């Protein structure tokens, strides 16, 4: 197996630890500083040797509307949000009912609310949840601090974080704002710890775990993966929730000798990417559903003219403009089948925030290796969730192209029929290797051809180079060998892993098959992975069960196969998947 195609094997979450997590949400209206508070809390947790994640949700307003920061903390790496909210901290209640479904308060929840904020909106109330009121405003005013910093202290204390970790986090974020600001903030945090002690906060525990950690979003990780692979050109057209990838690259690429250019639209961004890739530079673009739809014609051009190319699609709820700020796994169909004609190409999906790095890097590698476009299906959840992860291993797959060798006097056959289907490629500058890249069907030399035998030969070549390649064990992450299998892909792998850990503790023998490589699908590898499974649960976040249909089309599934799929905007929770597994308990 080519080492590039070795599974990086991110740690499955510690099953025991998954139960000892804390889900904490902070809600408030525009300007109340909810997001900063959440980010600092996560930072503090990482400093205290914890793992955690931060997701955010806002109202429809462009700026200044209500917001909620949801933080989940634990002793082991986390894969997803929890089933319910343990602690809800409300700076105010303005429009907070909008978040009812996302917050999912339960009977065990503790609600801590600013005393002057009035009553909790009925839509949020959960039977059994305990509500306490705290004077965040008054406390803050007394010490000339900000209420959200008091809330930060309160939250950190409730999470059992040592105050020093919070001080470190605050210093990192506010360090540039001067000593006075810093001091006021620290005083507010301390006041928050004071409030918490009155509520009976647990004792602080700093974990001894000293493994180096990163805090990163999936969008940043995708950008980094591309740069690690060697991507040096990007063309961008802004779109939520993919913009951050391009913004990260706009800063990063010039530093590594590359460049990013903003295009007039997605038709231009994909074709600029194709141009740069044709020129020999590993290249990419990033977009979301509507942009991908505009790119499919030109992706077909890259397929036919065999130009390597990376497209990251950060999926959001569709169809059409849909819900731009919310996650969904509903672009699988278009990613695999959205190109006209018989158009084989690569489709991959990262299995976690951390895996956005490896999968994007591997996709860039495969694209160059196989001279084909690779679409990476990330999503809003992976892309915008901020996650504490173990520092990733260095290195990884590189984008390296099979180049045409120096001229031997014979006419250069750009689309030569080789055993692997990959034909050595020339790039401008190479003497005597000129050719015309073409989206018309062509002979081996690249000249247009409408002959049946050329069409068939080139179709077979383009299929076989992908289908015949050895993708190693990176095509999927397979965990366990139970007689039930949960088959999933992309970001849903997170809640699946946690659900399976719980189900195993309830005695179920379950394996997880989480596909990273979605096209080409290998029926034989799938069959091997499914071997001996008497029941299969297929899980994905879309309405029509796109992945389930794809599996049916390519693999034999046991009669006892259940498809669990539902659309966004709410992320999958492990509990939903555990419920679906109960039929086998």
């Amino acid at each position, binding site marked *: 197996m080519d080492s590039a195609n070795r599974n990086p094997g991110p740690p499955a979450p510690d099953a025991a630890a998954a139960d000892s997590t804390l889900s904490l949400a902070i809600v408030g209206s525009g300007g109340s500083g909810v997001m900063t508070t959440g980010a600092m809390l996560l930072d503090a947790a990482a*400093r205290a040797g914890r793992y955690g994640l931060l997701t955010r949700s806002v109202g429809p307003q462009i700026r200044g509307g209500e917001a909620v920061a949801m933080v989940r903390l634990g002793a082991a790496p986390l894969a997803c949000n929890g089933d319910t909210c343990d602690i809800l901290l409300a700076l105010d209640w303005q429009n907070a009912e909008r978040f009812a479904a996302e917050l999912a308060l339960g009977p065990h929840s503790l609600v801590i609310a600013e005393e002057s904020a009035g009553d909790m909106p009925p839509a949020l109330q959960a039977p059994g949840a305990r509500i306490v009121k705290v004077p965040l405003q008054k406390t803050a005013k007394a010490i000339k601090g900000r209420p959200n910093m008091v809330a930060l202290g309160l939250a950190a204390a409730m999470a059992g974080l040592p105050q020093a970790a919070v001080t*470190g986090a605050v210093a*990192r974020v506010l360090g540039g704002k001067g000593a006075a600001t810093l001091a006021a903030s620290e005083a507010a945090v301390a006041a928050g710890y004071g409030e918490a002690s009155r509520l009976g906060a647990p004792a602080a525990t700093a974990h001894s775990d000293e493994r*180096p*950690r*990163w*805090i990163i979003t999936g969008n940043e990780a995708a950008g*980094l993966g591309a*740069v690690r692979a*060697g991507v*040096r*050109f990007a063309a961008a057209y802004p779109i939520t929730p993919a913009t951050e990838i391009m913004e990260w690259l706009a800063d*990063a*690429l*010039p*530093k*590594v*000798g*590359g*460049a*990013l*250019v903003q*295009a*007039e639209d997605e*038709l*231009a961004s994909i*074709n*600029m990417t*194709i*141009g*740069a*890739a*044709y*020129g*020999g*530079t590993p*290249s990419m673009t990033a977009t979301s559903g509507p942009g991908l739809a505009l790119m499919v*014609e*030109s992706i*077909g*051009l890259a397929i036919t*003219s065999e130009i390597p190319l990376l497209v990251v699609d950060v999926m959001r709820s569709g169809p059409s403009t849909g819900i731009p700020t919310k996650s969904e796994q509903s672009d699988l169909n278009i990613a695999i089948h959205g190109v006209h004609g018989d158009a084989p190409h690569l489709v991959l999906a990262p299995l976690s925030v951390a895996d956005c790095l490896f999968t994007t890097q591997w996709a860039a590698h495969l694209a160059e290796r196989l001279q084909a476009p690779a679409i990476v299906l990330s999503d809003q959840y992976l892309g915008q969730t901020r996650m504490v992860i173990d520092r990733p291993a260095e290195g990884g797959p590189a984008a*390296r*192209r099979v*180049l045409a060798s120096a001229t031997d006097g014979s006419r250069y056959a750009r689309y030569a029929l080789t055993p692997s289907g990959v034909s050595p490629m020339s*790039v*401008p*500058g*190479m*003497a*005597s*290797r*000129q*050719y*015309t*890249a073409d*989206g*018309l069907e062509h002979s081996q030399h690249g*000249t*247009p051809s409408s002959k049946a035998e050329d069409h068939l030969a080139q179709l077979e070549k383009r299929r076989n180079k992908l289908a015949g390649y050895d993708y190693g064990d990176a095509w999927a992450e397979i965990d366990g060998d139970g007689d039930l299998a949960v088959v999933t892909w992309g970001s849903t792998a997170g809640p699946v892993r946690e659900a399976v850990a719980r189900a195993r503790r309830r005695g179920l023998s379950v394996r997880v098959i989480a596909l990273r490589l979605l096209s080409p699908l290998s029926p034989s590898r799938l069959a091997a992975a499914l071997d001996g499974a008497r029941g299969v649960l297929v899980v994905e976040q879309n309405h029509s069960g796109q992945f389930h249909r794809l599996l049916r089309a390519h693999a034999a599934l046991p009669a006892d196969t259940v498809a669990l799929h539902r659309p966004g905007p709410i992320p999958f929770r492990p509990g939903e998947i555990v419920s679906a597994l109960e039929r086998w308990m």
Partner: protein
Amino acid sequence: MTATLTAIEAAPLPVPVRAPADYKTDVKPIWCPGCGDYSVLMSMAMALAELGRPPEEIVVVSGIGCSSRIPAYVNTYGFHGVHGRALPVATGIKLSRPELTVIAAGGDGDGYSIGGNHFLHSCRRNVDIAYLVMDNRVYGMTKGQPSPTTEPEWDSDLAPGGTGLRPFNPLAIALAAGANFIARAFSGDPAGTARIVAEAIRAPGFSFVEILSPCVTFRPDEREWRKLVRPAPVTETSDPGRAARRLMTDDGFNLGILYRGDRRAYQPRSAPVADAERALERAFEL
């Protein structure tokens, strides 16, 4: 930017003198006998021979149409993309490989209709590309539908009795959008066209050459163009206001370089930093 390619950027060799024939392939054009595009091909080869760069350092990019078939007939690197997208492909090549000579070429349908947005934004972006449009005022490849430059009364199956629309003025639009070099040529004058094309390639930034190139099959009336064209009666200008006035009232048959600006070509800043990858990664540490 192309780490993989350093090997081929070898020491410069003495430049051999090249002839137009060195820039042509022996692929037989699919064009109709008498098509204006044959002459444009000849002019391109003449211009490239005059400039004398090795063919492998030149890329000719096109979209789809009769005229867009030209890359296959030129012995440089070529890219025959999809309809309307020649300019972004050319932009991607030039921005990532600034040392190459990049030429985009195609038809009036490809460039002004489906490709209109890239035309606008390429003029504005001002990347160092020469863009040659073989304007025959018709969709040749799809057998005779009106293009943006077609006269309003021209009768066709898709627009019986004519479109009734005012023709598009590509030069005025190029100017308003910011093109740095604007010229008009006529395929019936291959030497003059070659001179203008060479000049367009030499000029920094985005150079736009509208080449009147008759479609003898679907617009046999365009054979008359040879009687209508004339050298522009005014001299080259670099004043956009004056050029705008001229181009807004131009009848479409004045040949020559009609505007030459002084904007610097766009090239994105690339500022390599030592050990940049490490520094980028460090930002994710606590």
